[in-house]
């Protein structure tokens, strides 16, 4: 392992949670907040420092939907599929996003720009249907209002996508 920067960050997270009970999930949240996903090297390093076997770490990581094992791309487009959003047309929005980005839910575009996923209720059912793009929450989304969020960010700049 050569990523010393990674090691420092992981060490800080491990130190914060090591002697607290029931803290493994919190430490893994720490890793995902830092990297956007849980890199394998970081998980290994965390395990060593917190004295948790790697098998246990992956047992937890793979159980919970929230944790990502791969880099998600720069823009994470999450289509809410809670019941209210479902009734108000979320499946169509998902199809639209999937078609325009050329990826299926759970996948990342080849250039790493977009990640498309389905989420289970972000708790804004009064504003359904809802889509989030990274931290930003879009309310009462229509096909038209979703469109600009699916464009390549550099598409208009000197022809580079």
């Amino acid at each position, binding site marked *: 392992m050569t990523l010393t920067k990674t090691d420092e960050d992981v060490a800080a997270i491990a130190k914060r949670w090591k002697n607290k009970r029931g803290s*493994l*999930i919190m430490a893994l949240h720490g890793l995902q907040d830092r990297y956007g996903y849980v890199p394998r090297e970081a998980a290994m390093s965390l395990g060593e420092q917190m004295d948790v076997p790697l098998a246990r770490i992956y*047992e937890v990581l793979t*159980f919970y939907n*929230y944790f990502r094992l791969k880099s998600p791309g720069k823009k994470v487009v999450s289509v809410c599929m809670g*019941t209210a959003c479902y*009734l108000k047309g979320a499946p169509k929005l998902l199809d639209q996003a999937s078609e325009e980005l050329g990826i299926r839910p759970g996948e990342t575009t080849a250039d790493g720009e977009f990640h498309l996923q389905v989420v289970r209720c972000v708790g804004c059912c009064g*504003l359904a249907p809802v889509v989030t793009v990274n931290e930003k929450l879009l*309310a009462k989304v229509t096909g038209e209002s979703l469109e600009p969020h699916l464009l390549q960010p550099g598409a208009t700049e000197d022809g580079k996508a």
Partner: protein
Amino acid sequence: MARLTVAELEARGRVEAPVSDRPKIKVGMSTCGKAAGAEPVFVALEADLRERSLDWRVARTGCAGMCSMEPLVEVTLPGQAAVMFGEVTPEFARRIVAACVDGAPLPTENRVPSIADLARIAGEPLATEGGPKQYRIVMRNCGVIDPDEIDEYLDRGGYQALAKVLSTMTPEQVIEELKVSGVRGRGGAGFPAWLKWNLTRESKGEEHLIVCNGDEGDPGAYMDRSVLEGDPHAVLEGMIIGGYVIGARNGFFYIRAEYPLAIQRIEKALRQARAADLLGNNILGTDFSFNVEIRLGAGAFVCGEETALIASVEGKRGTPSPRPPYPSVKGLWGQPTMINNVESLANMSQILLRGGEWFAGIGMGKSTGTKVFAVTGKVKHAGLVEIPMGMTLRDVVEGICGGSATGSPIKAVQTGGPSGGLIPARELDTPITYEHLQKLGSYMGSGGMIVMDETDDLVELSRFYLGFCVDESCGKCAPCRIGGTQMLRLLDRIAAGKGSEADIATIRRLAHAMQKASLCGLGQGAPNPVLSALRYFEPEFRGRLTSGRN
């Protein structure tokens, strides 16, 4: 915030909040409000006031309940009733300020009901004919106070119940009061709260623990998020009282990671409470010490199930285990643990301040008090409503929420989420109580209430709910893991027009097996949406069968 003692808190409770001589402006800044654009409205208001060199405060508040009308701005001119504006833009916000400054009448456009028009607040008399239909105990401060300011909570009687309990009540007396109140768990099943508190208290262990279940996983329900965001101290106060009663020194907030704002607000509330001696060692100068930490969920619906939640708080996979032993006997790290829902805890301070009899006087039969519902779907005014139990579904859906938004008549209402059931429109006059909803094949659940119109396809909806449970099944027990998957295949076949008469019979048989043999509530409840759809709308399924099409 200076450290508080019981005497100081009690003195504070006797002081009336000063009447302001300036206009008060509040902006709803919960997740819904922000999503709808409350941030630019807030910025515009502050900038406008600064330009005019006015030092009026623009307050951020939580969710007032009218989620579909966000961003909401409430203006109170001195000596006048509050006026609420909905779908406010930054430009409109500046118009409001201009009117306030000029002493001109406030704009007549974008008016929506104010909180006082919508609801009575705990302590006020119940609604009379023509008065507001909602009654807010749990949401008493939501949309009213700035949740980031502990002082605003204290000004509304906050922590008075804690002071009263610590200085004048024994744990047994608190339990007795809860027994009189009849309050039941608001997470879904409706287990009597006093019994849960008492069972945990009486269990032997090295330590007792309390957990607030803020893992609101039911898609279509967000009451707990709004309460955590809008009035975090109310939940915390309930939890501290719970800790005192069961003899706990430590508690945990277990909150969904998908609710970042709720997490921030609780973190802040914990810091403020520690600084004020409401949390930590020797609370309010007494010999009671109690600490609270936060643990985050990570996206697993099954963690709403008590035993799975415990595994998750311990940092493990959230797989449930057989009960008994119940968590009240053997919970977190094998110790007696009391798990309470957010809404249950937010009720506690009011019950203890106003008395169990007061609470028991609200509601119907064995369903006392109020219930918060997230009414969404094809309804005109989607949002949160808090109603006295016993109100009819029709009063909520049509009376409070304005009925169908689409012009197509209402076909059914779904309560209880993926473990609940459909209620057909002809049963809308049913009163909302634990017992009545169960009789209809649904259940109270945590508070999701989804309204469907005639255009909604209930075969598809059944697949949606079951698909959710199949995805979320932890896989530990066969009835849930295999039963759910097989049932989903049968539904897929029916939806595709390839099903047979025998498939419907098989679905019913599988459902029975899952209900009886699954390890936890997820598997036991998973067939409910399908069964209730079959119970009330079987012709829709039959119309899709191969024979039905010929």
